[in-house]
């Protein structure tokens, strides 16, 4: 490993601009003539729109125009869609209700957009938005997903009778039932996975610019996948054909899934720019973000786990109701199905698994992928059940897991996945050693002296990253392929630009991707620039989510580098009059192996572009592109251990240590990987301890609409983390990478709840384990 190559802790190239206030986020953009938008939003969770009066608002000072859903419809702008088709077990397709970017007949959740005001300033637009008079006829409301399926509940979309979107299954029900019937022990649980708000610190923002001269649109937006945004806005929403629409996602301040989707605001601002003749910028405030950013999780499940007399799992049966909110967001259907039920085997050899998943509409914000997406729900369900089973069976939690670990690879689970590599004992042992598991009893006794209840809990997670291959996901209903692209452009002076379809919004691609190139070609990392996030600059790409950028995005770069290197070697061989098979790349030079003959990289690049002396028939230039479609998912895994002290008088939980031992395959930059784990852990701990979206069940009003009521993890809620890796390379991609972006959020919640329930000696506890809840449970138990 070089100081700047693969495996090195290289400080980030992008940091200087962020540290000096020179980052360029969407809300930082200004263009001549730009005006500001504010959306008029529904204050009702469910209502019929019976009238909309905007004359007074439009006449207010500084107001350019007020546009509504009827105008949007008249201009032919299409419905928002869900891009992953799921079929119910009866074979019928999912029941997708219409989602208008601006509601024109019915509003279905608090925050549903109804009209847009464009004005000279945000303040003027907000003044006018208050003056838009919308007449609503309130309709009955349902927010609870279980209740929404009951008879006599409000009907949210005419397309989905009984609010059921689909009733889907995976696995062999008969085999699971049979194993459960013959089991020595069955552990049964009811599992709630709490609804979360992703909360990237940069609120969503978009700037729509229509240029009548070229009939061309530009959309600056807070997106994790600008090309996908362009594709969907062109193909489905009729905003503009792709060649007339440029989408730019500049610096993006975190996404965590919530910036994958195309929301009404991007579409409406582009359309409003054409209607008004001015560039239109909208930036969400935090309350709008709570109201309208896609939420995550929100599952209610029952689980049965069957064991034989040797504590080996014989079957798992899961029944899940997943709340998808008022509309089907872009990938909402995939999350509680192929990103969830396929992971229910965990790290364990389970012969029979069956999952039934029903998704429902409610009068709440749309729910879609949030960091981990489906996999945290599967892991929480499985690892809470394993912990409970260990307590019921009277075996240590580690022992129960060891009895059931998968140890031979590849391993085909009963739920689609084919695990390619892993060493679950290694992670478990590493975590237990790092946590001094054996010393826990003494620590617990010491805590008891201080009146504190100490507990310890573990979680062994597996996840699947880099969802692929495209043909397979297509057969499962995906509307897009899940490959990635790269183009490596060597300039005439030897510096390099890499155009990637991945998008960095905190992950550090500008550094890690450059490390790959530096490592491969032996050039200084400063001579490599990573270009992303602009459909005018970068060839079609699929963006960043599902921890795919390393495993899929970098693999595409490897493929492009293969082509660049092959051509460079041909040129070098020609210049040195050597055989191209004898040319090697070393330290920025192309050398004839075993000789002192070499040409610097820059000279080869220059030769490619002067084209004065190239091999016969070779095209000038040194620029190659590649598309990479993985053969399989990757399967990161690990073991997390959490140790807590609960104050029995207040119910306050303090995390006294948190250990993460992960297997991420090969690692490009350990510093960045650790940072990803830290961030994921904080979000997982947030879910377990602090965060929860709450709606009033009667009115459908969002009760957690700001940081006053939605508890975000702060620095003093968290400990410093003890993170390490023990890695088995992924055999299915050229770099052996598995992906690390979501692991922390996937593996940590059950470790925490297992620790708290261990501390208080009572197993019934739902997330978030707030002081109030822990106090109530602990005192009920005593």
């Amino acid at each position: 490993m070089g100081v700047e190559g693969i495996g090195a802790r290289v400080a980030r190239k992008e940091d200087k601009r962020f540290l000096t206030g020179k980052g360029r986020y969407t809300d930082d953009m200004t263009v001549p003539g730009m005006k500001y938008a504010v959306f008029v939003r529904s204050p009702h969770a469910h209502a019929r729109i019976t009238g909309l009066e905007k004359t007074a608002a439009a006449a207010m000072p500084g107001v350019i125009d007020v546009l509504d859903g009827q105008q949007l419809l008249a201009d032919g702008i299409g419905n928002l869609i869900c891009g992953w088709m799921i079929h119910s077990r009866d074979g019928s397709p999912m029941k997708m209700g219409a989602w208008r970017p601006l509601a024109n007949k019915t509003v279905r959740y608090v925050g549903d957009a109804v009209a847009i005001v464009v004005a000279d300033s945000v303040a003027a637009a907000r003044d006018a938005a208050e003056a838009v008079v919308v007449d609503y006829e309130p309709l009955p409301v349902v927010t609870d997903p279980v209740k929404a399926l009951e008879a006599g509940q409000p009907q949210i979309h005419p397309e989905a009778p009984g609010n059921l979107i689909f009733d889907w299954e995976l696995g062999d029900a008969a085999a699971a039932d049979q194993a459960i019937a013959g089991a020595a022990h069955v552990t049964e649980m009811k599992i709630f996975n709490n609804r979360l708000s992703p909360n990237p610190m940069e609120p969503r923002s978009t700037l729509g610019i229509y240029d009548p001269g070229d009939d061309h649109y530009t959309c600056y937006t807070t997106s994790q996948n600008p090309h996908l945004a362009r594709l969907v806005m062109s193909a489905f929403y009729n905003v503009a054909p792709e060649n007339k629409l440029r989408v730019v996602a500049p610096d993006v301040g975190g996404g965590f899934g919530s910036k994958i989707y195309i929301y009404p605001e991007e579409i409406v601002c582009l359309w409003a720019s054409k209607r008004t003749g001015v560039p239109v910028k909208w930036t969400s405030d935090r309350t709008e973000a709570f109201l309208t950013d896609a939420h995550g999780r929100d599952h209610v499940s029952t689980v049965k786990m069957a064991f034989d007399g040797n504590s080996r799992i014989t079957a798992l049966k899961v029944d899940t109701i997943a709340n998808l909110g008022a509309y089907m967001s872009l990938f909402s259907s995939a999350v509680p199905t192929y990103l969830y039920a396929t992971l229910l085997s965990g790290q364990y050899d389970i012969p029979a698994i069956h999952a039934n998943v029903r998704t429902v509409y409610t009068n709440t914000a749309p729910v879609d992928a949030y960091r981990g997406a489906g996999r945290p729900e599967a892991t929480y369900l499985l690892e809470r059940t394993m912990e409970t089973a260990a307590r019921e069976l009277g075996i240590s939690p580690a022992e129960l897991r060891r009895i059931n670990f998968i140890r031979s690879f590849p391993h085909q689970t009963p739920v689609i996945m084919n695990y390619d590599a892993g060493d679950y004992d290694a992670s478990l042992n590493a975590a237990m050693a790092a946590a001094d598991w054996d010393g826990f009893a003494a620590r617990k006794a010491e805590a008891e002296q201080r009146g504190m209840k100490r507990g310890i809990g573990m979680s062994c997670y597996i996840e699947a990253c880099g969802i692929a291959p495209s043909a397979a996901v297509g057969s499962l209903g995906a509307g897009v392929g899940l490959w990635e692209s790269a183009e490596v452009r060597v300039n005439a002076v030897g510096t390099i630009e890499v155009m990637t379809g991945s998008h960095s919004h905190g992950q550090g691609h500008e550094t890690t991707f450059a490390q790959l190139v530096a490592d491969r070609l032996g050039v200084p990392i400063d001579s490599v620039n990573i270009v992303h996030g602009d459909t005018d600059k970068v060839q079609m790409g699929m963006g960043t989510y599902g921890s795919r950028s390393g495993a899929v995005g970098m693999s595409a770069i490897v493929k492009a580098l293969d082509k660049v290197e092959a051509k460079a070697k041909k040129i070098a061989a020609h210049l040195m009059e050597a055989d191209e098979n004898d040319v090697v790349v070393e330290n920025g030079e192309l050398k004839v192996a075993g000789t002192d003959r070499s040409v610097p990289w820059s000279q080869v690049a220059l030769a490619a572009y002067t084209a004065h002396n190239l091999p016969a028939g070779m095209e000038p230039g040194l620029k190659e592109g590649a598309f990479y479609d993985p053969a399989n998912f990757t399967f990161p895994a690990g073991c997390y251990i959490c140790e807590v002290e609960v104050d029995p008088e207040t119910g306050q939980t303090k995390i006294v240590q948190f250990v993460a031992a992960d297997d991420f395959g090969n690692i490009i930059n350990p510093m960045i990987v650790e940072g990803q784990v830290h961030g994921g852990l904080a979000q997982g701990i947030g879910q377990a301890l602090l965060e929860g979206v709450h709606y009033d069940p009667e009115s459908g009003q969002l009760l957690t609409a700001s940081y006053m009521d939605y508890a975000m993890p702060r620095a003093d809620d968290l400990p410093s983390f003890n993170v390490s890796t023990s890695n088995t390379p992924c055999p299915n991609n050229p770099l052996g990478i598995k992906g690390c972006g979501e692991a922390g959020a996937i593996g940590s919640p059950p470790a925490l709840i297992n620790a708290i329930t261990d501390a208080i000696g009572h197993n019934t506890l739902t997330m978030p384990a707030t002081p109030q809840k822990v106090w109530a449970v602990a005192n009920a138990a005593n």
Partner: protein
Amino acid sequence: MYQTNYHRASSVQEAVEMMSNVPEGKYLAGGMTLIPTMKQRLAAPSDLVDLRHITEMRGIMVDGRSVRIGAATTHEEVATSVEIRAVCPALCGLASHIGDPHVRHMGTIGGSIANNDPAADYPAAVLALDATIVTDRREITADDFFTGLFETALEDGEIITAIRFDAPATAAYQKFANPASRYAMTGVFVARRDNGEVRLAVTGAGSNGVFRHRGLEAALAANWSPDAVANVTVDASDLLSDLHASAAYRANLVRVMAKRAVAAA
């Protein structure tokens, strides 16, 4: 935020005059509650009269055990006051945990008390310390000052200019913060005089704002010990209940925070 007109006063007298000339004015001290409230369009004063530049309202004076804090003194200034720390460290401790460092650099004791947010920290101290609220026109005892949620005895246009109290023999404040807002979900300030008198005030929990708990006061006057609170009943029916804490849980917190405050005093 709705349109408003900003005025900067350089003396108490000028501030009162400015206020008398505007239709729906509000005094602006640190602004750490008022500006956020206006941002959310929950308050719409026609005019703001800024008190932050009135020098006569700033500063801390300690004479023996007698303490006078100018109303425009920031939380940070109270938290780090060597003079106050010498006679009433509990107040410094309380001030050092209001909001966050940035809020403490702007927020003032007068602003906090005038606003009387049911989850604010200072009202508990003012009430338990039996402080006197000095205004441009009179002096008001703490027992008379806090009259309900966001309600005080202040008249239209009246300005708090200072807070005065005699430092108790011992005092302490214990707060259990709301996990989201970090405001007091329950805060208890307890003060004991040389003569054995105990005053104990609770913030964050009362459905009518800050209040003294006479039962706890009596128990602690009889037996100044953390254990003395164990058998005192805290009636949950007068307490707030919300997403974060039921009244029953708050009642428990009142007792626990009281116990810990006595232990810390």
